[in-house]
């Protein structure tokens, strides 16, 4: 994803502002940010799933398997969707069609992209259903979604997404709606399948626990911009953007003194009140007049890059002290 900007119809500024990120085969990129920061919109745009006419792409390109994709070419995007590039969603309870058997829903995905018979599609669906850990898969194929629990339904969604061996899986908060024990199982399942098939994964989440668990690289998103990106351990051990630091310090710690959890004060700004320049400036403890100009995403080495005028923060703090 290069320099990607997107604006909703009728909005005065870009919801998604010059976003860059990439993921390679077999790796997981976690896109982290608060609700409303544009994570889901970006992922839907990548799949070509935004409602037609709702938004315009203002700049940028998406390169997938060496091809520059035309996100507005519905037919080309449709052929990629569900085959090379697939997506699972936050709400397993409502993401499956209540009127059809789950076996048929998975097989439908196979039939849409492969030139094969119904029996072959059925066998393929059954195999993937077994692989995602559905017990008595043969029998479950004939079940309707309402007969399965939330965790099971998310497994079915994963099966549906992986049945055609995609190169890229976009998972939009796949564990948010599940309870904690199931969350861990689903994450583990995604990670296992990823190693097996060598697909790239983009995990959209606001849960830093998930990030710690699964990410190779992290992109921190704030109000439609990427504020910091880099290898997961760098982001966790050496966060440079004031927003990332705020996020990290809001994780509860098992050790150390007890007290109130730290939070990032304020709210994510939305379109009509989008600040000029650095979008975090309104909530940033370090904000200076210079923040009225937009900071570029500047590399700090080892794939770590930060969009802040004061990066690296340590040097800046030393200078000002």
């Amino acid at each position, binding site marked *: 994803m290069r320099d990607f900007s997107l604006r909703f119809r009728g909005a005065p500024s870009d919801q998604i502002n010059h976003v860059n990120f990439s993921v390679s085969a077999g790796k997981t990129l976690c896109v982290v940010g608060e609700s409303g920061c544009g994570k889901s919109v970006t992922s839907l745009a990548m*799949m070509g*799933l935004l409602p037609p006419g709702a938004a315009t792409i203002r700049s940028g390109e998406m390169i997938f398997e060496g091809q520059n994709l035309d996100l507005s070419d*519905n037919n080309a995007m*449709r*052929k*990629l*969707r*569900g*085959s090379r590039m*697939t*997506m699972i*969603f936050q*709400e397993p309870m*409502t*993401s*499956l*069609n*209540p*009127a*059809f058997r789950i076996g048929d829903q998975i097989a*439908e*995905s196979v039939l*849409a*992209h492969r030139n094969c018979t119904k029996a072959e599609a059925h066998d393929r669906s059954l195999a993937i259903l077994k692989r995602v850990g559905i017990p008595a898969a043969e029998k479950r194929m004939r079940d*309707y979604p*309402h007969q399965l629990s939330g965790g099971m339904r998310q497994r079915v*969604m994963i099966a*549906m997404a992986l049945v055609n061996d995609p190169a890229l899986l976009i998972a939009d908060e796949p564990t948010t709606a599940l309870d904690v024990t199931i969350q861990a199982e689903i994450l583990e399942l995604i990670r296992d399948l990823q190693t097996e098939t060598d697909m790239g994964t983009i995990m959209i989440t606001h849960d830093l626990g998930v990030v710690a668990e699964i990410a190779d690289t992290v992109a921190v998103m704030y109000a439609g911009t990427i504020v910091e990106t880099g290898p997961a351990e760098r982001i966790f051990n050496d966060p440079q953007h004031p927003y990332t630091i705020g996020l990290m310090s809001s994780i509860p710690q098992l050790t150390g003194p007890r007290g109130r959890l730290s939070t990032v004060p304020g709210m994510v700004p939305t379109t009509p009140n989008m600040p000029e320049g650095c979008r975090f400036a309104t909530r940033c403890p370090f904000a200076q007049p210079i923040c009225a100009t937009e900071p570029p995403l500047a590399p700090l080495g080892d794939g770590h890059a930060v969009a802040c005028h004061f990066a690296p923060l340590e040097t800046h703090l030393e200078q000002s002290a």
Partner: protein
Amino acid sequence: MLSFILRRLVIAIPTIILISVFVFTLQKLLPGDPVLAMAGEERDPQVLEYLREKYRLNDPIPVQYFTWIGNALTGDLGISLRTNQPVLELIGEKLPVTIQLATMAMLFALIIGIPAGIFSAVKKGTVTDYISNVVALSGLSIPNFWLGIMLILLVSVKWKLLPASGYVPLSEDPIRSITVMLMPAFVLGTALAATLMRHTRSAMLSVMSSDYVRTARAKGLVERKVILKHAFRNALTPIVTLTALLFGELIAGAVLTEQIFTIPGFGKLVVDAVFNRDYAVVQGIVLVTAVGFIFMNLLADVAYVLLNPRLRKQ
């Protein structure tokens, strides 16, 4: 499924009893004396008394009710006070005519209403959507009788394409029978098509924004399949219910259209019976209509269960 249907049938029994009591009492409360209507100019008290005795109108009202309902259970709905024909025979003669009319009208309504509803939901907010909404509203607002008369003037009188009125039984000459009924069925169907279109549109709109429709798109299905399979299948439930209710209404509500096109149907029978205080016929008609309504509702419920796997028993 069978036990579900049986349960519904058992629930229907008290409904039918209630309706029969209601109809019977209401009739008795109406002003006007059927005997006077029958006797015409004759005002001889002896004749009137003889007639009252013959039709057992002197019995206490509860006795009259039980006599009537008891006979009804054996298939005897009484005898028309006016034509002396058995009521069941009269209904049996007229009902098929109206059922044919209603079925054809319903087909028109479905063929026009559902695709128009889907189309305007998919094209929401576009010119196509506005045009179909305007057409639908016109369909709802144009009175049946006016449309009927205009069609007769244009299609029958001016272009001489279809006969203006009449009826040919289906068993006699199917093709002619359908041709003759084409115009009245169209007139009846247009208003229903508008209702169906509006309901289809709103059902489709609510379904189209659901998560599973997004999933269907994410699978890379062609848009036609997303709409007609994943969305429409789930929008179908309210449409089926509506269709069943509308069909029941059609049977009872074809009166005006039957008058315009002089079709010897159920509607005409109702009107004649009410004007002539032909008690037995009115009661019989209401009872048959009520049973018909209940049957259509039962069909709708069955369809509901078939369409919605969540309601199916394990």
